[in-house]
């Protein structure tokens, strides 16, 4: 089959969505499908640009390429699913969240002017049209599925993406909590730093890059964390696997996250995950006292959880291994079988 996997590209930014897109292409190719990743750069501000950029996708003609038909389009996230195709499947990573649950929050983008409100409604209309015309609709998590149903009435099948392939292993339950991912406000790394400030016995490593890094490094200095919080920047796959292998646990508590690959990656290294009650998608896989700890989103509660784990390594090991069993259940065979049904 000739398949176009559609995903927007934000130049110079790479995160979980990009990993899922690349992995999907690779896995489809492994199974003999002629597959191409189709991307268009995406900029969602200012004002109505979010719609003019979506319009670019709407105008694309992916019915065929160089005279040969494209049999299937798999679109992933906004605005790539605006693409028109007679056999369009959407595997929804997320909608344009600023137009939905992030509206009127610190993470929103639309002000109260009639023009901005109308742009937001324009995104809603486009979603109803472009998602409604998909032949099949999948969501990467129940959280994303619920949001979609609330906003459009469409009910997708939940199909989580398998974690990226890394040389995962478990070396020890060390003396630091690991945070992995793009460093922006929504990932809430700040809470981890505040937990370190609340308990001087804790240490953390923050792996990743992002626009909030400078502010967080300054915060770490202000809180006098004195080297207990280490920012590594972007790391190689091997370095990341080593960090997973030697940490005590993995902290992952974005605000109402779509899904998050990080918990599964932690599990594959047999590490428990500490998250918060408002984290969204991660709560579908991180179960309190089963595969990790789920705490209130306060520095004190987080600090207590991490300290408790440091004193109960047997539990950390047991929960990490339980998580691993869950993570191993996700397979690309199953995912691709569903996407191509």
């Amino acid at each position, binding site marked *: 089959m000739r398949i176009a996997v559609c995903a927007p590209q934000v130049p110079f930014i790479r995160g979980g969505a990009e990993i899922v897109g690349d992995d999907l292409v690779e896995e489809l190719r492994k199974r003999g499908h002629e597959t191409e990743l189709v991307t268009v750069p995406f900029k969602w501000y200012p004002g109505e640009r979010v719609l003019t950029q979506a319009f670019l996708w709407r105008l694309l003609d992916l019915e065929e390429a160089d005279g040969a038909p494209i049999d299937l389009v798999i679109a992933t996230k906004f605005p790539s699913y605006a693409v028109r195709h007679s056999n369009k499947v959407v595997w929804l990573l997320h909608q344009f969240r600023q137009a939905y649950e992030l509206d009127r929050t610190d993470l929103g983008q639309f002000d109260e002017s009639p023009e901005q409100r*109308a742009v937001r409604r324009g995104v809603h209309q486009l979603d109803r049209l472009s998602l409604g015309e998909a032949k099949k609709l999948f969501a990467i998590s129940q959280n994303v599925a619920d949001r979609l149903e609330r906003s459009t009435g469409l009910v997708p099948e939940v199909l989580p993406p398998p974690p990226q392939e890394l040389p995962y292993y478990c070396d020890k339950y060390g003396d630091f909590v690991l945070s992995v991912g793009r460093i922006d406000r929504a990932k809430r790394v700040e809470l981890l730093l505040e937990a370190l400030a609340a308990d001087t016995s804790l240490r953390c490593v923050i792996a990743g890059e992002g626009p909030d890094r400078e502010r967080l490094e300054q915060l770490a200095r202000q809180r006098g964390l004195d080297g207990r919080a280490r920012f590594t920047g972007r790391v190689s796959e091997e370095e990341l696997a080593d960090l997973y292998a030697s940490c005590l646990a993995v902290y992952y508590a974005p605000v109402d996250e779509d899904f998050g690959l990080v918990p599964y990656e932690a599990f594959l290294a047999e590490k428990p995950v500490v998250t918060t009650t408002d984290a969204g998608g991660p709560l579908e896989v991180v179960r309190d006292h089963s595969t990790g700890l789920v705490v209130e989103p306060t520095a004190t509660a987080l600090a207590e959880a991490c300290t408790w784990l440091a004193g109960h390594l047997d539990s950390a090991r047991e929960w990490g291994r339980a998580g691993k069993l869950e993570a191993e259940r996700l397979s690309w065979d199953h995912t691709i079988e569903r996407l191509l049904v």
Partner: protein
Amino acid sequence: MKVAYYSPLPPERSGIADYSALLLPALARRIEVAVARRGSRRAPRGADLALYHVGNDPEHHWWIVEALRKRPGVVVLHDFVLHHLVAGMTLGRNEGNGYLDAMQREAGAVGRMLAHGVIDGLLPPVWEHRAHEFPLTGEVLPFASGVIVHSRYAERRVREHGYAGPVWRIPHPAWPAPADLPAADLPSGRFVIGAFGHLNRAKRLPQLLEAFALVRERVPEALLLLVGPLAPGLEPELPEGAIHHGYVDEQRLWSLLAAADVSVSLRWPTMGETSGVVVRALSLGKPLVVSDVGWFADLPDELAVKVPVGGAEVEVLADTLAGLARDPARRQAMGTAAHALAEGEHELERVAEAYTAALEEAAGGEALRDAVTAEVAAAAAETGLRPGGEGLGEIAERLREVGGGR
């Protein structure tokens, strides 16, 4: 965003006043709402948009239409047929020429001649029996920057009328059924068929009474409960087993509705309206029997039996009611479906959210369309695409899908 809100409000006795009383608090939780005072000539200050609730009753809506004509805005069209309203705002003020002109706009020379006949007393008033043939909705629609309707039927009529602006279909919000209703004090052990609201020919009262007499032959325990004031000149002889209450207050209405085993809402002609009584019956989970016309025909079959108007209407109605009397399981299933509809698409917060979406689209929509179109048009021109070319045709179509273009 601030919206100037024009509507009759309690204590005015009007279904639309009740509607707004229900909707306003939920809407005000989402957007800033400035309620216009009845009869006020001045629009609330600083509003980005005006919202006008328009119904067919001139007493409640004349000032709203006057305000609309001064400042176009979004119209909530509660009735599609506005003949009464227009007649009241013209003939009711001794402005015969206004009525003549409106009828001419509606139906050309024939309309004008008909209006002359009415004014001269040579013909019966059009609004009494033929309003649906001359809806006069064109007296309002040209001033609407967008239209909100409650039903597919009204949406279809608005489009058939040639209205090209945005139309939003937003269901009538459902009142939550009150808890702890006092007993209705009806005779016990009866199969209660309820008909509520103003009782007139358009509610098919003669047909209902005739059908009920047939029902009684097969279901002796049937009781017909008529609730609402009788239209002037209508003095029906009630068959045995029928009782009539005139105007009742809201709580009593709920009690009597709750006591009914089935709620009957017949209609012809229809003005394209929704029925507040039917919406209340949905909240109470009552099986419905309705005429197969207008908004009533849009109701899902699982909860409403639809009776065709004319022909064997009386017999079908009698068969339907007798059948429901003997089939409590079906009534139960219909009631469950009715309640689910009230809690689904008629749920107040959902309706308020749909209003907010419509108003936000209306307030900023034009500026958005201009901005999107300008950016794309500039790119198209720089690419060498020229007006009239095939490429621009497709661009225009795709643009509409993302909220640009016209």
